[in-house]
């Protein structure tokens, strides 16, 4: 007879809420008349994310003593819950933008879009809490498949299809690497639970075992694909550019949160004995990401592509926090993720508005005058870009300070210098966007809205960008509270 494990339903309530909302949104595709479908699906999606926020906040408060639930499959602790809060926040903001921005001709598939958005976020919220290699892989596939489809949702636009296909193929490669690595680790230790792996490695003296190290390396590579760190980044610019901008905004923020939150937990919990290996590996990947991301971004004219490369370089900064491997590094990572998610989402949302207005891809040239025409979005973009560059107009500044401090504490002053030089290079292209928005007159460049007249009003997009702006600026002033949240989350991990 098979014993079913005790299931702590409350622990996975965020996931259930999101999945439930996803089903309702999907039902809307057949039960709700076409003209009300967009409003219906969007409302369900927004409500679902609000529900997810409520449960994850509740669980955060309620899970001071982190523990494994459901036969060791899922961590109910504050690290999981804080990541879930961030993910649900991103999902909520995406729903707002998507109402106005997922292309109009596809009204008949709009419910499916929101269903996929909810489902992929549900997968990510599961992913960040996974307690063993199996659950990790399943959750990864779960959210990835949803993302592949979301990238290709504009199926009659060549770029979107190309993005979907490219992401599918390269993403599958990453998943395969992760799966193969997991299999090797299982082969070496005979365990799939994160904590069990560390336990077996410790008790049997397996540290440095070739099979284990190879498995770890492949897992790192697999996670590298998902977090778009160099040299596993090649899909990023094409996919970010080709995917509908709403999806890019969601992906750039949410996938990073999921991948980094999981990576930090996995390495701290399952491979503490190999820390010297993975911290060097991540430091190396960080340097590669900073170099490739920043240098490639310098020459981009397409702003979406530029921000894609910038996201690679930010993966580098996040990896600096990760490679420090300490509690300080974990706090730095969480803080950085919160701020970065807000800035990345916000900046792509602003681009979405410009793209819709012009009806073509946003380049440095046709961004001219945008800042004066749409002051709120312009100022918001200004804040995001300066935040990316680490200037003290928002939490981006403190985030950089934190990861660099973590690197120095780890004894890596050279990594601080690398980070500083990378920031310096990045200034050039971030400021190029500001320059394009404010300092070049649009009249002389013949930029005109696609339908003529004034730009669309887009109140919901403004709300979403406003939220992102509030988070990215507020985190500068509220460093204390945010770090406290991160600290409680980090305390759930073993050190």
């Amino acid at each position: 007879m098979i014993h079913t494990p005790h299931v702590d339903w409350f622990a996975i309530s965020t996931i259930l809420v999101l999945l439930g909302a996803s089903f309702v949104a999907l039902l809307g595709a057949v039960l709700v008349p076409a003209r009300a479908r967009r409003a219906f699906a969007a409302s369900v999606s927004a409500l679902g994310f609000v529900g997810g926020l409520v449960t994850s906040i509740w669980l955060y408060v309620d899970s001071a003593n982190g523990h494994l639930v459901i036969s060791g499959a899922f961590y109910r602790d504050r690290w999981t819950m804080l990541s879930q809060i961030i993910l649900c926040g991103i999902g909520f903001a995406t729903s707002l933008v998507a109402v106005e921005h997922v292309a109009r001709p596809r009204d008949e598939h709009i419910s499916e879009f929101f269903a996929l958005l909810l489902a992929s976020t549900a997968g990510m919220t599961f992913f960040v809490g996974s307690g063993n290699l199996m659950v990790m892989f399943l959750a990864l596939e779960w959210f990835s498949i949803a993302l592949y489809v979301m990238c290709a949702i504009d199926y009659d636009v060549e770029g979107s299809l190309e993005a979907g296909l490219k992401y599918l193929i390269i993403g599958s490669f990453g998943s395969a690497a992760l799966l193969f690595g997991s299999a090797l680790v299982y082969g070496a230790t005979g365990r799939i639970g994160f904590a069990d792996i560390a336990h077996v490695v410790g008790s049997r003296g397996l540290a440095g075992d070739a099979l284990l190290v190879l498995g770890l390396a492949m897992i790192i590579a697999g996670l590298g694909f998902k977090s778009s760190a160099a040299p596993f980044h090649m899909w990023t610019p094409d996919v970010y550019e080709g995917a509908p901008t709403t999806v890019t905004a969601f992906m750039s923020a949410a996938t990073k949160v999921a991948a980094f939150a999981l990576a930090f937990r996995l390495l701290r919990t399952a491979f503490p004995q190999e820390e010297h290996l993975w911290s060097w590996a991540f430091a190396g990947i960080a340097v590669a990401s900073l170099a490739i991301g920043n240098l490639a971004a310098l020459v981009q004219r397409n702003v979406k592509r530029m921000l894609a490369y910038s996201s690679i370089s930010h993966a580098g900064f996040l990896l600096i926090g990760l490679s420090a491997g300490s509690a300080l590094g974990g706090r730095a990572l969480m803080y950085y993720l919160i701020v970065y998610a807000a800035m990345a989402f916000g900046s792509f949302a602003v681009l979405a508005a410009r793209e819709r207005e012009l009806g073509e891809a946003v380049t440095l040239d046709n961004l001219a005058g945008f800042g004066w025409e749409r002051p709120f979005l312009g100022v918001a973009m200004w804040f995001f870009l300066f935040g990316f560059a680490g200037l003290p107009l928002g939490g981006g500044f403190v985030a950089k300070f934190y990861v660099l401090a973590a690197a120095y504490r780890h004894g890596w002053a050279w990594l601080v210098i690398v980070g500083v030089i990378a920031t310096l290079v990045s200034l050039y292209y971030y400021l190029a966007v500001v320059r394009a928005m404010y300092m070049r007159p649009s009249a002389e460049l013949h930029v005109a809205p696609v339908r003529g007249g004034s730009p669309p009003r887009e109140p919901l997009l403004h709300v979403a960008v406003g939220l992102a702006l509030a988070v990215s600026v507020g985190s500068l002033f509220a460093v204390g509270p945010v770090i406290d949240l991160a600290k409680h989350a980090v305390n759930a991990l073993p050190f």
Partner: protein
Amino acid sequence: MTASSFTSLLIWLPIGAAIAVWVLPLSRYATGALAVLVSLLEVGIWIEQLTRFHFSQHGLQFAQKTTWIKDLHVSYHVGEYGFSLWLVGLTVVAMAACIGYGFWVGRDRPRAYFGLMLFLTGATVGVFVSQDLLLFYAFFEAMLIPLYVLIGVWGGPGRLGATVKFVLYTMTGSLFMLAALIVYGLKAGTFDLVDGPTSVSRWIFLGFMLAFVIKSPLFPFHGWLPDAYRQAPPEVAAVLSGVIAKAGLYGMLRIAITKFPEPTSYYRTLVLALAASALVYGSLLAFRAPDFRGVVAYSSMAQSGLIALGLFSGTNLGYDGAVLQIVAHGLVSTALFLIAGTVERRTTTDQFSLLGGMAKGRPALATLLVTLGVISLAVPGSALFAGEFLILAGAFQRHWWWAVIGGGAIVLAAMYMLRLISAVLHQARGSTVSDEALDLRPGELALVVPLVAVLLTLSAWPAAISHHSFAGDQPTQQVETQFK
């Protein structure tokens, strides 16, 4: 509201006003009027502080401290010493004049413009009152953002190149300062400037100094200066040379020299040599510059060199003179750039080849420019003379040749200043100077005359600053004890 919170008010009032200006749909006139009002209010608050400041008392005054980032021991810690009080005074007075100038000429896109000017005021005051390294760094960087946009949007035809150069130069320095301060703060266990220990690390010292010598700027880190000063709108160039550049010099005094006594004496000769080069080279360039702004721009570089000479001479006279010179030259160059702006408005150019003969029929302009020029070339009896004399006397105590170089440069100052005055006011009438170009209007006089009045007051009583910057009579002792 307690007395201490006035320091914070000086920072956050203009920043709050900036946000209000951005958000509220005020008319052009109301926006400018509000900005001018706030900048005057700043001057009022500062005067209120001045009356309550105890110059003989040791240690930080009007201090306020709250935790900002607990686990890394970073705090929001602001407060003032004697010399920071003077720098804040310079900032609020110069900014009031420059904001007034922006109002007078009626800048385009007033809400953005005045918001940025107010933001700049708050950030600059923040630099001078921060007593925590990260906070200092945050404000130091925050100054750059409004400047970047002010030059890039309202600047001259070559503004885009100027902004790129300006930002890349200054950020190079700042980011190495960030690395240096992380290392310093984590080693010391605190980022607090008052409690923080001294350090002997030469690398950290160099990281800080790189930022400060670029900001000041000293030779050979001045590559950004000519473009930025020429392309910026005149009132922004005034702020840049009058106030922002002084932040670099303030940083040398407050952080580099105070916190790194051993590296300071190790690198003293090098820094003095750079300072002397800036002084001589800047003066020569000023003498060769073909335009009004070029002369003032290079002369501010020369003056930065002189002030750094005073600071790094490490003598009582040098410190006293440097603080006096920072304030006096800040006021002079602010006023000179504003005058350059008024000349440009009348003639559309500041090229000497197209100017000349403006004195005739324009007595107010001529009087003000000659007065400022004479103060600027450090005629005995002027505030700048007092400052230069103290600095040179201090440098002489370090070694006589520094004083000789400095003295030589003062002769050059006379040469370039007289050349400026004669090229603008005298000589044959320039091709762009028409009879319709009026004398200074009352509005313009209201901006420049108060600056000149302050300068004349300081000329009469230079000890107001030179004897009231460091508690006690021994600045060197104050520096050694880190102003405790």
